[in-house]
């Protein structure tokens, strides 16, 4: 945990390593999830000299581990057919760790990013924050009980399946978003016995149990969860809990940047996805952290039309 100063690479060094543009970018997009892909798809080459960076080793954000899936047709099409527009540099396994907005002495925004080779800086006239977020774990909601193995969010379960491992034998998926239910189906297909549960929400999607998660039981491995169903405590014996209640906007790296957040922790934007800082936009989950990513594709499309130099 002790932080050690890492070697700082200049853009010139990076040019030798990657096929990148010299000098400043017109647009830097933080994140290569759905909203970013939608922006690139709509904006294309008209965005100008663009760099896209993402923590993951592939594009598509957290949903990449689920897609293709029923009910995610639009998202899957976008991902499946995605082509990197000409003039756009894509830096994968590259994580933004800081943002220094433009000021009098420096008219472009600076992104501090980390990757294998070290820390580097990227300068851009416009920055689109499309970094999404992370899934809300049980700890965030302070669900009482033990801390056994077998409690996870969908993205962990889906990654483990993709790596060829079963995360458990009998799972309760807690949440009734289309993402939660698609995760439940995927687990069932892999051979797990799956029970779906959620608090009564009235969104029309059906789960097997209606109830509020009250307690996590068992140690060292999960043995059961308790739900409050109709004022009755019901114990469900499972060895796996998929906690699928939502996302948290990924804004921790913006601390000290001056980018304003809402009380809910999302980035505050106006109707045109502009943050409080000129030339810095935010779209997707980091603005609206619904687990279903319903708005991401639309937001990307809309911001493409709004960016100076963008297409309408």
């Amino acid at each position: 945990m002790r932080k050690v100063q890492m070697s700082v690479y200049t853009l010139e060094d990076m040019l030798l390593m990657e096929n990148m543009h010299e000098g400043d970018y017109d647009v830097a997009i933080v994140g290569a999830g759905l909203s970013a892909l939608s922006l690139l798809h709509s904006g294309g080459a008209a965005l100008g000299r663009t760099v896209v960076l993402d923590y993951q080793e592939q594009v598509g954000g957290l949903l990449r581990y689920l897609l293709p899936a029923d009910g995610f047709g639009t998202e899957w099409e976008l991902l499946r057919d995605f082509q990197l527009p000409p003039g756009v540099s894509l830096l994968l396994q590259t994580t933004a760790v800081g943002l220094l907005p433009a000021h009098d002495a420096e008219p472009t925004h600076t992104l501090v990013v980390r990757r294998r080779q070290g820390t580097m800086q990227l300068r851009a006239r416009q920055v689109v924050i499309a970094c999404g977020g992370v899934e809300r774990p049980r700890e965030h909601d302070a669900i009482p009980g033990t801390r056994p193995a077998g409690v996870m969010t969908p993205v962990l379960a889906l990654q483990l399946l993709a790596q060829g491992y079963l995360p458990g034998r009998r799972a309760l998926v807690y949440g009734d978003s289309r993402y939660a239910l698609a995760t439940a189906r995927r687990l069932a297909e892999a051979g797990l016995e799956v029970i779906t549960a959620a608090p009564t929400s009235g969104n029309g999607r059906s789960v097997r149990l209606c109830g509020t998660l009250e307690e996590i039981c068992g140690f060292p491995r999960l043995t059961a969860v308790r739900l409050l169903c109709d004022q009755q405590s019901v114990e469900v014996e499972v060895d796996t809990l998929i906690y699928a209640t939502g996302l948290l906007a990924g804004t921790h790296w913006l601390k000290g940047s001056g980018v304003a957040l809402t009380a809910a922790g999302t980035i505050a934007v106006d109707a045109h996805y502009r943050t409080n800082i000129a030339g810095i936009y935010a779209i997707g989950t980091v603005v609206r952290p619904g687990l279903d990513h319903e708005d991401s594709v639309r937001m990307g499309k809309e911001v493409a039309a709004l960016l100076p130099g963008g297409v309408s």
Partner: protein
Amino acid sequence: MEMTSIDLDVDILVIGGGVVGCAILRELARYDASIALLEQYPDVCEGTSKANSAIVHTGFDARPGTLEARLLAEARQLWPEVIARLHIPYLQTGALMVALNEQEQATIAREIVPKAAANGITLQPLSRAEILEAAPYVNERIVGGVLVEGEGVIDPFWTTRAYCEHALLNGAQLFLGERVNAIEVGRRRLRVRTENGKTFSAALVVNAAGLWADEVARLAGDHSFKLTPRKGEFLITEEDHGVAQIILPVPSEVSKGILVTPIVFGGVLLGPTAEDVSDKRDLATTTAGQQRIREGVGRLVPAMTTASTVRQFAGLRAVSSTGDYIIRPSTVSERLLHVAGIRSTGLSASPAIGHYVGTLVAETLGLRLRTSYREALPEPLSEATHEDGEVVCLCRSITRGEILAALRSTLPPQTLDGLKRRTGAMLGECQGNLCLPRLIALFQQELGRDPLSLEKHAPGSRLLVERLRHLGSVPAHSGERPKRGQ
């Protein structure tokens, strides 16, 4: 004694790899003797040592005349050198004890200040205005308080590992995942068996088994003391609201109360509760406990009532039937030495407990100091982190280089929680749900660990149950696949 093959013959065997056991191991490593430590969990620092306030406490409120008070006082002198030699991250924050009414203010003057004086510590009285100026986040309704200057915060995991690594550097042996289930007391030697079927023989055994020390004693036929678990629940917030000091309430008859404590690496720890429980494995957090914490800290730092939490946990302290530390030979043999009932001050007193027990053992066995002894741990390697700057833990910006350095260290993690504590990975908002598969892959790559065998923390906490039988069936949808290289 029956004839069984001995897997390891040593002069001294320490049972228990908590902060106390490891501090003792480190002190014993000074002597010309063969030493080993057995720990039931796959890592050190898994019991009481792992879930506490992480405070290096001065002992200002210890009961004067007790062994606990004496060792806390000695530890105050030893800490600076321990921290420097073992390179342990430490913050001397000081502690503010705040009185919420005149009655509490009177308790401070009448009981707290004289008791501290008896323990050799001068408390600095502060007015309401002085406290609010130094700590504007404190409840405005306070009437006054005192500053305990010497209190600080440390990382208990780092401390325990550092003790252990220092001992290993000086020739000690460590056996993880070895739970003791039988002790045979002979006239000259003791035999200790573990659940894995290993047999150890030693001239002297130190029982530093924490909460289980009474059960270890019973294995040897010693029923002289009993330990009961007292649960303390905590919660962690990353909203620090400027908290830079430890904020203490005026203690009541039963408890030191619920505190607000800065964490050495950032964030704030709230708690603990104090609840006597019967099950030594009951580490569950409860709605009632979390509520009590919120109420308690709300009186000290109102903003903490609603601060968002990233994690909650519970620890169990070992409360002894005697009311003081139990550091003495067993009733069945001089060669079995109990170090038990260390309650909640084990971390704070650990350098002195180590020194006290080390001296005691050396006298008992007539040991001499080793001629070659390395006084300090090497400086933590910084080059390792240069190797690969790719961020693996997104929430905490922990790089692959940092993970690799931990996996290649003297005391590498055996579990995912072990890796978490060594690097800080998985401690952020998502609690590891995003990066855990990457960490599993690094465990496999570096230590050759089969992912199926990898555990979260305790034995039996495997994360994966089996390999998928039909790899091709996931994902099994439209048959379309994303294009490569995008």
